């Protein structure tokens, strides 16, 4: 009970990117990528992830995650996630962005 109350009290301080928050580690990157993709595709779920690859970011600190996700309607979409940033770029975003990110990051 006390532990739960303490956790609730600390919640505002545990938000991603909040003051005092630790940077995402390589082992946490896949989970962060899933959350980032789910945030973008919340109307297309449930989602099924496959072929997720984590790489150390080359031009900026952090990690990049490349992968594919199966949507509820059966279609497949590639994604590219940067962290820090926890932001997913999707094939639907156009301009050949995902293809370029995959190529530049050896996905």
């Amino acid at each position: 009970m006390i532990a739960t109350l303490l956790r609730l009290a600390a919640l505002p301080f545990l938000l991603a990117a909040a003051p005092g928050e630790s940077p995402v580690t390589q082992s946490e990157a896949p989970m962060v990528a899933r959350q980032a993709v789910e945030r973008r595709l919340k109307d297309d779920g449930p989602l099924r992830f496959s072929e997720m690859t984590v790489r150390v970011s080359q031009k900026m600190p952090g990690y990049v995650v490349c992968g594919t996700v199966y949507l509820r309607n059966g279609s497949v979409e590639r994604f590219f996630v940067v962290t820090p940033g926890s932001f997913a770029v999707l094939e639907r975003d156009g301009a050949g962005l995902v293809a370029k990110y995959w190529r530049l990051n050896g996905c």
Partner: protein
Amino acid sequence: MSARRPTTALLKFLSQQWSMAVLTLAIIVVSAGASQSSDQMPAGRGVSVAEVGAQSRSMIGWTTFCEAQPAECAPEKLTPVRVMLTAAAWSELAAINDLVNREIQPIADDEHYGIYRMGIRNWWTYPDDGKGNCNDYVLLKRKLLIKAGWPKSALSMTVVLTPKGEGHLVLMVQTDRGDLILDNVHERVLVWNETGYEFIRRQADDDHNVWVSFRHGGASVLQTSSDIKLLRFNSR
């Protein structure tokens, strides 16, 4: 010490008002906006660039960002360049600007993180939970552009004042078609002198841990000469 309290309280109040005003404006403009197509690419001749002058003090938001995420601010000597704004580069720039403006939900720092009760007035960070204010939009756009191959030296975080005198952060992209502004308030990518902002300071071209002031009213016509290094990069 006590004499400082009213000043601190006033600053806090003004900061809150500033955040809310910019946030409100951002919600209105971004939600009403439309994506930008390549046929709206800035003209190539006679485009003015914003002149910078002396070194300025660093932004406190940048300083605290570097303390929190030191790897982001590791010393790095950059080679100043201007990007050749091909149709493909323009399309990519507009796409990333549209994407971040569309997907990140605007929220004021204190409402987001409760920073005032921590004694923090301004908090620059990435919008890791899909929400953020102007600083967060700028950091994410900068990162996505760099990851897409854009040269870091051509992407400067830039402090401006809005016509209402409110502090605001935008991303300046130095191109052969002028200094372009990526903003979460103006939906479209604009040439700097079309924004209506007063330009205060930005990151230096050769070192992003150094900030330089803009010359008031300073503008020069872009010369495609040997003193301007142009970079054409593979934008596909």
